[in-house]
């Protein structure tokens, strides 16, 4: 049974690709056979975050157009054997992706015995984002505790419950999860950032995880190593927790409290 997970958000720059890479790695580390697909046609980036940019020969659009086989286009990860990356095309042709083409690729991945397909959605609500979510069984909606991101993700939640295959067939709805990223507990404590509870209350869906704002995310992307593989960083550990929850484990939320201040810092309000 293959499960299709879309990582989406509406707004750009909130951490979709970082999240897709880390979720795919986290699932593969658990022994699952995983493919992660970049749906951002024209703006390929997942390959950089995964650290396989120099090994891209064929891409998603080549497969859809029958210019190569799916097997040729899937890039095997060098760290985890069961992990595969399908890069986006750099073409400027917006209509390069078709619903039938995407369906065929997903069907072939099912036949190949993949356990999970992670679809990294582009920002916006155009065709690429629509196709990334259309066939999904579950959705991870990435949101920053910030007004425009929260509003856009509510829009995406609406689309997930109306513009997906599950919605059109009247099947069980796409399972929705919220992933709060770039969370800064200190700013929450200062009243300058909405809290986990605020966002949860506004959007009204279950929370898969909270990823603290962390230097580790930038250093990970600099070196092409998904941040979940950095167990020194809080963001990496929070992603590990989120993947465990995705697999049905119960784990308490971590990194929600600001680090305790010293006496001097407390006296002078540092």
């Amino acid at each position, binding site marked *: 049974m293959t499960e299709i997970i879309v990582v989406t958000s509406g707004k750009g720059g909130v951490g979709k690709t970082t999240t897709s890479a880390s979720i795919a790695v986290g699932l593969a580390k658990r022994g699952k056979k995983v493919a992660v697909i970049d749906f951002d046609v024209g703006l390929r980036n997942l390959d950089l975050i995964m650290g396989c940019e120099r090994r891209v020969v064929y891409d998603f659009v080549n497969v859809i157009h029958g210019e190569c086989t799916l097997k040729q286009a899937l890039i095997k990860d060098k760290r985890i054997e069961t992990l595969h990356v399908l890069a986006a095309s750099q073409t400027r042709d917006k209509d390069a992706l078709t619903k039938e083409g995407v369906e065929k690729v997903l069907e072939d991945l099912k036949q190949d015995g993949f356990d999970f397909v992670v679809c990294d959605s582009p920002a916006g609500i155009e065709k690429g984002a629509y196709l990334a979510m259309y066939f999904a069984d579950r959705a991870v909606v990435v949101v920053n505790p910030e007004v425009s991101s*929260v509003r856009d993700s509510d829009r995406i939640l609406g689309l997930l419950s109306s513009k997906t295959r599950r919605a059109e067939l009247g099947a069980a709805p796409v399972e929705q999860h919220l992933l709060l990223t770039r969370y800064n507990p200190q700013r929450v404590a200062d009243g300058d950032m909405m809290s986990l509870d605020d966002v949860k209350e506004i959007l009204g869906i279950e929370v898969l995880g909270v990823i603290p704002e962390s230097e580790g995310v930038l250093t990970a992307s600099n070196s092409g190593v998904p941040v979940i593989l950095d167990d020194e960083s809080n963001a990496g550990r929070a992603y590990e927790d989120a993947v465990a929850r995705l697999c049905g484990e119960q784990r308490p939320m971590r990194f929600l409290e600001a680090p305790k201040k010293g006496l001097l810092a407390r006296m002078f309000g540092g």
Partner: protein
Amino acid sequence: MGIFDFLRARQKSTANIARERLRIIVAQERSQRGAPDYLPLLRRELLEVIRKYVNVDQDAIDIHVEKDGEHDVLELSVALPERAAGAQLRAEG
């Protein structure tokens, strides 16, 4: 909280402002979700017709579709100006 915090200007937490603004806009956008695409145009044309007879504001028309069992009910309410106080044109169908 530092002992010199009272020197800073007291202000309402911006996180609370964000939450309240979002609560309102999200509720409003959800209420319009799933409504037929022709609603805005219908609203504009109805407004033009009504304006031939009564001088009403741009936002005097409230129009939405509600589910009532098997049927979809198009509910339209028009607030008439002060002069005709209390009068409300209401049509359902």
